[in-house]
């Protein structure tokens, strides 16, 4: 098949399914042939998942994790978007705060765990705070660059029609920067989902991250560890796919390149 040829519909589905099936088979037979006592086979993981579902833990933990990510991500967006727009709008403010942001940005949220526990104690608030930290900086950076990349013709046209600075921000700058802001939101949602696992291992006793560490600590249940990993992967994929739909909205699509 040439790389230029448009893949047929069944091919689009068939090859990924085949690859996944091969992976499962490889995993299964490796577990069987090496006769490992520690690492679970796919069937053991499936049984583990069923057990979690039966106990009612699966849905409760998924719900807890999603709730924490939603809170942390929403707080990051609610603070990060206005801050990013402001910094993009006032270059002087950006010059003042940018060094500080650039120092804070590369610090992994995991390094914040001790500080977060002092500030918020052990519990939900700490987990949410860590997720917030992971999501906040990419959102700010995307907004700043989104605003500063707005072509000057758009600003000029807005000013020409007599918009006040606030109207200009709402009607020209924000929509013009929106495609880039949405890319930033998508990246930071992915990071929030990653940080959730670490945060829940440390700060709380529910959720998918907690399930990973708890299954290992109480009885070395590696079937449950891998089951939790799979659930984290599948939900992470679902979140990303859901987010990608936003960029197909016509008032956003113009500015988003269609890469995967």
């Amino acid at each position, binding site marked *: 098949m040439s790389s230029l040829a448009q893949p047929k519909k069944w091919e689009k589905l068939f090859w990924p399914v085949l690859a996944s099936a091969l992976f499962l088979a490889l995993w299964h037979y490796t577990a069987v042939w090496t006769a490992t006592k520690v690492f679970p086979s796919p069937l053991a993981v499936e049984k583990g998942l069923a057990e979690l579902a039966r106990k009612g833990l699966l849905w409760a933990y998924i719900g807890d994790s999603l709730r924490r990510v939603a809170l942390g991500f929403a707080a990051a967006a609610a603070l990060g978007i206005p801050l990013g727009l402001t910094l993009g709008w006032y270059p002087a403010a950006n010059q003042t705060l940018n060094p500080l942001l650039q120092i804070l940005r590369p610090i992994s949220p995991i390094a914040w765990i001790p500080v977060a526990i002092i500030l918020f104690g052990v519990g939900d608030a700490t987990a949410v705070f860590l997720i917030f930290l992971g999501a906040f900086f990419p959102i700010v950076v995307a907004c700043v660059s989104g605003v500063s990349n707005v*072509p000057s*013709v*758009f600003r*000029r*046209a807005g*000013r*020409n*029609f*007599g918009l006040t600075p606030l*109207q200009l921000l709402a*009607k*020209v700058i924000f*929509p*013009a920067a*929106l495609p880039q802001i949405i890319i930033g939101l998508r990246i930071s949602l992915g990071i929030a989902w990653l940080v959730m696992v670490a945060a829940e291992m440390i700060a709380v006793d529910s959720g998918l991250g907690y399930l990973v560490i708890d299954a290992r600590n109480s009885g070395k249940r590696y079937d449950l560890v891998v089951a939790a990993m799979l659930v984290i992967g599948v939900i992470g994929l679902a979140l990303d796919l859901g987010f990608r739909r936003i960029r197909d909205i*016509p*008032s*956003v*699509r*113009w*500015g988003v390149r269609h890469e995967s």
Partner: protein
Amino acid sequence: MERAAAGPKLSARHITTVFQSDGKSTPVLDDVNLEVGQGEFLCIVGPSGCGKSTLLSTIAGFLSPTSGEVRIDGEAVSGPDPRRIFVFQERGVFPWLTVEGNIEFGLFSLSRPERRQRVAHYIKMVGLEGFEKAYPAELSGGMKQRVEVARALAVNPDMLFLDEPFGALDSITRLIMRGELLRIWEAERNTIIFVTHDIDEAVQLGDRVAVMSDRPAKIQQIVDIDIPHPRDLSAPRYLELRNGIFKQLGLAHKV
């Protein structure tokens, strides 16, 4: 061409502009003087990079001259104004709004029914019926240019500034758009200042053509185009005026 007795619509006096960057100063406009009458269609031509666009941006209030002053209706220009709309090449159309949304953009102070009525009127005038809900990405260059002209006209400006508006269009679309612009101008009678590097375009459209020199630019000459519309592009008078401008710019019109 009739001019208001009260004086010119626009007068630019001793406009001098020097750009500063990295400690180097580049003189762009050198003592430009210009008067434009009410309802006049003035074209400005000149070699590329000569400062035509700088002059137009200054007249529109986006740039302040280093010295000199622009007055419109006797009032000094200190910034852009919704009574005078600048039309860019089709790049100025907002890609996140539909055709309707773009044309409606400047009408936010009007009531909803009034907005509707204006949008419908100008969509019809520029021939975009059926494309009201389309986004700019779905339109051709010529159609986007019409959207931008309609957006400008919808706010009922008394002046239009057009900066090489048809420069990015193919030659057939460009000819059609020139005809459309003249038709609209004859209906609305706004004062139009039209910057172009295309001498034919200037002579086809303008009541007068201002010829600019190389940088730092002065206005070398203003040519009256005393041919009524519609203009015959093979008439001796048309060719004579056109060749005069080519000569003025020091261009041999032979290939």
